[in-house]
């Protein structure tokens, strides 16, 4: 299931519900991405007061579904959940949650990592960090492209 939403969510509640829903799966892997409290640029030294996530409504949902489908074709998965927020977020709030359910841990771990790596380079989200010094769009990193590309060699 793919959910793109502005409102905050509680990762603990979501994970509990996912586990209950997949009682027949022996392995559940989860990843939580949260807003950190410092700016990401090399020149920045200040603290982040707010993170604004812009997205491309329509394409976002399609890309996340495509990534989840690709994961399901590569590994044996019983279920997948991806929740991603947009709009203004504050430090320590969850940005993204990925849960994968499988019979065994190997498939659950790999699929969860794969979904995050591909999400980072293809889901149409853009982050803007707001700090006391002003606001700045976060630059994409080449290392993320490499991580995503490495899955094609596996």
């Amino acid at each position, binding site marked *: 299931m793919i959910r793109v939403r502005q409102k905050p969510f509680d990762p603990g509640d979501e994970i509990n519900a996912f586990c209950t829903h997949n009682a027949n799966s022996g392995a559940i892997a989860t990843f939580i991405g949260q807003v950190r409290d410092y700016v*990401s640029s090399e020149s920045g030294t200040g603290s982040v007061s707010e993170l604004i996530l812009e997205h491309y409504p329509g*394409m976002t949902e399609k890309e996340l579904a495509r990534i989840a489908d690709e994961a399901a074709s590569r590994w044996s998965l019983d279920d997948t959940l991806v929740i*991603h927020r947009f709009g203004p977020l504050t430090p320590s709030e969850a940005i993204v949650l990925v849960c994968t359910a499988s019979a065994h841990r190997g498939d659950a771990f790999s699929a969860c990592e794969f979904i995050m790596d591909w999400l*980072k380079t293809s*889901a*149409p989200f853009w982050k803007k960090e707001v700090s006391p010094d002003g606001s700045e769009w976060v*630059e994409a990193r080449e290392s993320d492209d490499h991580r995503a590309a490495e899955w094609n060699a596996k």
Partner: protein
Amino acid sequence: MPAIDVLYFAWIKEKIGVGQEQVSPPGTVKTVSDLLDWLADRSAGHRSALSDRARIRAALDQTHVPLDSPIEGAGEIAFFPPVTGGAS
């Protein structure tokens, strides 16, 4: 060529000043890259936002495409910087 909806996101949208516009480029505009050249002449903001091709990504009808893709038949074209969702 029929009218195309062009969408802009993140700093590209900020530099151009609008998030969406409908355009009817001439028939000589055949690829995504041709369209970028043509759009750049619309205003100083367009030129500033669309000049650095290494920092621009495109989607045709909500699917990622390279800049040399043909645009014939597309109803919606989006331009945006490399994406930065998720978390570290």
